[in-house]
Each structure stands twice: as C-alpha cells, then as structure tokens.
C-alpha cells in the first residue's frame, strides 16, 4: 500500500563512538518526555524518560537532555554498539491524565562495525 508520512532520517556511527539523536517537540505545555527504541519487526520499547523539572537524566549508557527554551530533546548513547542499531522515537505528554502520548518522527541509527 501507499506509505504514510515521511521517511525517517538516518544517523550512521562507528561502533564505539558516541551517538546523539535529536528531537524537536511541539507542545510547550508538555512536561513528560520519553525515548523509545524500535528494533526491526518489533514494537517500540521504553529506554528512558525525563520530566520537565529536569534538564538531564542518565541511565545505563544513555543520557537524555531537555532544553525547554527551544523545545528540544536529545538522546546520547555512549560507546555505541551494533545492538543499538534501531529506530529511536521521542514522545511527549502533557502532565494531565486525559492526554495522550504524542510521538515525534523518529531517527534510524545504524552502527558500523
């Protein structure tokens, strides 16, 4: 069938290098943000989240940075591995139980051995 939407941009990195994936979100009232990883043939999986009262949050090999002034979110992956190859989506949510999670466009990360 006819494809819906835009092709995803691709980020290609060398194994062992650090990766930075960027996302611009749309709603200045959003106060909760999530990064998801989607491997081929699977549903998206939660990586890390951050609330708007924080600028930075670290996980295992991943760091999320939030810049509310310019509505920008980034995901940093340290020492990128072949298993990190996937599509990465950011999602935003207003801190209201009645609101839905809204996804950004996504970035395909390709790790070269």
């Amino acid at each position: 069938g006819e494809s819906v939407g835009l092709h995803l941009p691709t980020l290609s990195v060398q194994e062992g290098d650090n990766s930075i994936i960027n996302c611009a979100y749309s709603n200045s009232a959003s106060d909760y943000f999530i990064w998801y990883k989607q491997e081929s043939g699977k549903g998206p999986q939660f990586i890390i989240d951050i609330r708007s009262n924080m600028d930075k949050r670290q996980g295992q090999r991943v760091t999320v940075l939030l810049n509310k002034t310019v509505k920008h979110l980034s995901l940093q992956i340290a020492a990128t591995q072949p298993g990190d190859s996937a599509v990465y989506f950011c999602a935003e949510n207003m801190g209201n139980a009645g609101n839905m999670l809204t996804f950004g466009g996504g970035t395909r990360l390709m790790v070269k051995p």
Partner: protein
Amino acid sequence: EADIYQTPRYLVIGTGKKITLECSQTMGHDKMYWYQQDPGMELHLIHYSYGVNSTEKGDLSSESTVSRIRTEHFPLTLESARPSHTSQYLCASSASIRDGTEAFFGQGTRLTVV
C-alpha cells in the same frame, strides 16, 4: 516484558475481507492506542481510548473502527480490507496518572492485503 499482546503477528488477506486485529493487556491500564506504521516510517496514531466505552479518532484518518467493551481488550476492525490498508499496526497501553507515564507496546500486526 510488557503484558500487552497482539494477534495475529502476520496476516495476509484478500481484498474485501473483514478483519479484526486483537489487542489485550493485563496491566489494568485505562488508556489504549492503535498506531499505524509503514516500514521505515513514522508512527501515526489512528485510534485511542481513555477507558471502557471510550473511543476516539487519532491524528491520522483511518477506515478502521475500534471498540472498548472491556478494559483489557481493544480490537481494531476493518470491514472491507483494501491493498492501501497494508501496513504494520501497533497497539499500546498506558496508565492514567497525573504526571504522565510511558506507554507499553505490543509486538505489532503486519497486515498485507492482496
């Protein structure tokens, strides 16, 4: 592992057939969602539900319909499948808490209409 299940994983069906894609979750989540995603493309929200007897259309127009008779079950139906419906359909659920929380995704159903 998230407790959300989609069946079937893969479906090839002829034009004009009626199909229902199943989605069930055992987490007691109020919110459930259906997304459509073509290979290498964005996620598009096509339906969502706040809870039992609640269904809303998403950002992307879809010829499919949904129902939410039970909290754990959110099936999607196509009355008459067409080749343009060929895509991957992803179901998700999340809890309704004030400060927001992650959504959990199923493995998806890849639909091909021939």
